[in-house]
Structure formats: structure tokens, C-alpha cells
């Protein structure tokens, strides 16, 4: 935990970043095994993008990291925590792990600022004044300082997602998990969210991102992991996996994603 960060992008590290280490992780729903022994390491301060077709298990993997899903086998270490240890203090660990959902999941009965401050006051026991200060700082960080008194239903999808990022950042996390953060957004608001994530990466945050945005993955990710059928099929440097994949399944997937209009329909 709190390792000195060798920021791979050469910027100044402004966050304490935690690493993630996943070993031989397995997860089944009934007889349906969705994760078939996944091993994955994320260095402190690194950005790793998980790509792959739907149903490949990448979201499940992400949700296992902060135990929204309980894995059946294998181990996960996050910073100084062993998430898979039976006696782990789940709530304490989750304070260090920010999560951003596809559907935002903002609290609809609270305004943007209160969305960011509620867990600070209730969990971190910060005073309301201090929590408000932190919330405003993070809302400004995502470019929404001027909308702090809006309720979620008064914000666009992209704005809601940026509030959700600010909410997670307000807990001073050492790792951020993103579960398809732009998949539910109108195309014109995707860019704002991605640029917030890009800045976060520059500041040295450890990020694990499930995404279909290949441009973002190529530009921002240190490594890209391609998953299919519950296993890691290929992983490596982002540019290499996306531009010159070696596995046939990766090639096929990328061809479909990058050039969806030129698919030959087969019999």
C-alpha cells in the first residue's frame, strides 16, 4: 500500500496508488463457470484495460476485485489487503477502491455535492465542512463545480458519470475500477468522461478499466488484456495487442469492433 509510484507516463504522482494481484481466480454461477482461472497483475499507478466480447467474464472479474461478486477460488490482493481472505474487513478495503458503474448509480435523492460527501461523513467520519470541501474539489476536477447543487435527474448521462467519478475520488482511493463507464452514454458525452479518466491516469492513479473504447485503451492503457470465455486469451502492451494481435480470437474480435461495417456475413 502507498507505494512510491513510478508513474509509467512520466507525470508527477499525485495519488497513493495500490497494485492488484489476481491469481487463478475462478467464479461460477451454478454450473456455469464464467471465470476459469484468471491471473492478472496491475502495478501501482498502471492503467490496464480489459477488453473482450460480452459474456467473456471481464465485468465479473472487475466486480470480484472489490467483492461485489464472491469468487469461488483463487486469490486477490489489493494494496495491503487480501480480498479473498475470509477475515478481510471488506468495508475498510472498499474505501481504498473506487468503483464506477455503467449505469452511474448516483443516489437520486441527493444532489451532486451530497452524492460526493455522504460516504465521507458516514464512513470516513469527516466533518460536513471538510467533506464539502473535498467534494467541491473533486467536482471541479471533473469539470462540474458549477453544477454541484443539481440532482442526478437534472444532469446529462455524461455529467452523471463524471459526478460518479468525483464521488469515488472523494474517498481518496488508491485504485479505481471502471465497469464500461461510457457504454450507457450518448456518443457526444463520451469524450468528456474519457478525458476525465485520461487526466486521472496522468496523475498516477491505478486503474482497471472494462471498456469497448479501443482508442482510449490504445492511448491511455499501459497494458490491454483480452478475455474470452472466462480466460485471458492475450495480454500485452496496449499498442501491440490492439494493432498487432497474435491470437486468432483477438484478431477476430478487434476486426469486428474496429471495423463493424465490413463484417462478412457468413452462412
Amino acid at each position, binding site marked *: 500500500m502507498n507505494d512510491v509510484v513510478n508513474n509509467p507516463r512520466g507525470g508527477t504522482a499525485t495519488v497513493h496508488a495500490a497494485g492488484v494481484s489476481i491469481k487463478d481466480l475462478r467464479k461460477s454461477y451454478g454450473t456455469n463457470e464464467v471465470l476459469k482461472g484468471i491471473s492478472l497483475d496491475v502495478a501501482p499507478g498502471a492503467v490496464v484495460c480489459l477488453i473482450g466480447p460480452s459474456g467473456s467474464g471481464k465485468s465479473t472479474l472487475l466486480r470480484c476485485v472489490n467483492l461485489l461478486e464472491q469468487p469461488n477460488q483463487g486469490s486477490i490482493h489489493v494494496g495491503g489487503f487480501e480480498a479473498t481472505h475470509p477475515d478481510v474487513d471488506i468495508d475498510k478495503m*472498499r474505501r481504498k477502491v473506487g468503483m464506477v458503474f455503467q449505469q452511474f*448509480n448516483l443516489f437520486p435523492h441527493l444532489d451532486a455535492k451530497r452524492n460526493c460527501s455522504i460516504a465521507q461523513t*458516514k*464512513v*470516513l467520519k469527516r466533518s460536513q465542512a471538510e467533506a464539502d470541501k473535498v467534494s467541491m474539489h473533486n467536482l471541479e476536477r471533473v469539470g462540474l463545480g458549477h453544477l454541484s447543487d443539481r440532482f442526478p435527474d437534472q444532469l446529462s448521462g455524461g455529467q452523471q458519470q463524471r459526478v460518479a467519478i468525483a464521488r469515488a475520488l472523494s474517498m481518496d482511493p488508491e485504485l479505481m475500477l471502471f465497469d464500461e463507464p461510457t457504454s450507457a452514454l450518448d456518443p457526444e458525452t463520451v469524450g468528456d468522461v474519457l478525458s476525465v479518466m485520461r487526466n486521472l491516469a496522468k496523475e498516477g492513479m491505478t486503474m482497471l478499466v472494462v471498456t469497448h473504447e479501443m482508442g482510449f485503451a490504445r492511448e491511455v492503457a499501459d497494458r490491454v488484456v483480452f478475455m474470452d470465455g472466462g480466460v485471458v486469451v492475450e495480454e500485452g502492451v496496449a499498442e501491440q495487442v490492439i494493432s498487432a494481435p497474435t491470437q486468432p480470437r483477438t484478431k477476430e474480435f478487434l476486426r469486428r469492433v474496429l471495423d463493424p461495417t465490413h463484417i462478412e456475413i457468413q452462412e
Partner: protein
Amino acid sequence: MAMTARQRARVSLYVQAGIFVVAIAALILATDWKTIGNSVFNFGKIGPMFPGIFTTGLVNTLIYTFLGFIVGLSGGLLLALMKLSSFPLYRWIATGYIEFFRGVPALLVFIAFGYGVPLAFGVSWNITLVVMVSLGIVASAYIAETLRAGLQAVPKGQLEAARSLGMPQWRAMVTIVIPQAFKIVLPPLTNEVILLTKDSSLIYVLGLTASQYELTKFGRDGISSLGAGLTPLLVAGAFYLIITIPLSLLARKFESRSARTKR
């Protein structure tokens, strides 16, 4: 000549209205107005009901209903959480309780707590406590089902988001899920209050002193003392409407408000 669909619909509407008018007219003609006027609409003799029906009857009905609702709401919330618990014993207890107290007449519950409990334990409860407990126990069974539906209507992502921020389960429920559930169930909950207002009348089966009379008992007392036939009950009934109609309007307002906001 053949009619268009719109003409047919209009004719059908006229026929329905006609049947309705004829039925009302028949009812009015068949009524023995002289007798019913003496025994139900005999407003000349009800003077002595005032102002007591306000200061005692209405006030006591409101107090009994309020106390019953407070017990019912707390009990209902507890039962709803038990019913959604992952611990089977809690679910069984809650289900048994709800099925039992929704299934027996509220009147029997009043008798059980008014006469049974004092006999069984050799204690004598004051009337307010009996109403509070009886009404609360019946109400909690109904309110529990309403709240359970409300809690389940809060999207699962809300709990996940709260837990992801490090909130323990109870904290996430109290701060995030329950407030949203209450907003959802506000209209049906208001309807529960209307039902409770009327159920508070069941206290008449117990022995009450004059200062404990609520609306129905007040009306029944008027029947025997005023010689105006059933008119006092009609007056009492009107007072229930004074309580319940504003509540209905309130429920409708909540409904239209929650329909306007997306979630």
C-alpha cells in the same frame, strides 16, 4: 343506416348514462323517506353532540390512528427487512406473522389484547396502550408488505454503489436504500393510514369511559342518548370523511409527483 364507430360509441355512452339515471330514480322512489328521515336524517336533535365530537371523538380517533401508525410503521419496517433477510429463520417468522395478522379480523386482535392479555398476565392495560398495540400489530402486517415492495423497487445498483464506497450493509440501507423506498411507497402508505383511521373504530368492543370515546363510539353513544335514531352515526361517518378525503388527495399528489420524477 349503418353507424360509424364513433357514433356507435356515443350511443353506447348514452345508453349507459340512461341506465344509471333510471336506477337512481328507482332507488329514490322505493325509499320510505318519512321513516328514514326520522331515524337517519334527524338533524334537529343532534345539537348535544357538539362540540364533543370535535374535542373528544375526532381528537381521540386521530390520536389512536397516529399511535397505531407509529407502531405499525416501525414494526412493518422491521418485518420487511426480516422478510428480505438472507437468514431463513427471519424470513419464516416475518412471513408467518404477516400471513396471520393479515388473515384474522382486526376485531379479534382488539379483543385478544383488550381482554385476553389482561386475563393471561394479570395486568390491566389502559385503553390507549391496547389500541396502540392492537392497531399497530395489524397495521405492521400490511405495512410490511408495502415496504418490502418499496425496498425491492430500489435498483440493486444503489446498494452496490453504497457498499462500494465502504458503507456497511446497515449503513447503506439506512442512508441510501430506505429513504428511496419510502419515497416510492408514500402513496400506498397514505392509503394504509386511511384504513387505520377506520380500523381505530373497532375499539368500540372494549369498555371505554366517555373521555376515551373516538368517533364511532361517540356516534353509538348518541344513538342511545339523543333519540334521533341513527343520525349520530351518520354525523360520525361524515367526520371520518373529513380525515380520509384529505389523505386521499395527499396520496394522489404523492403519486403524481413520483410519476413526474424519473426514479
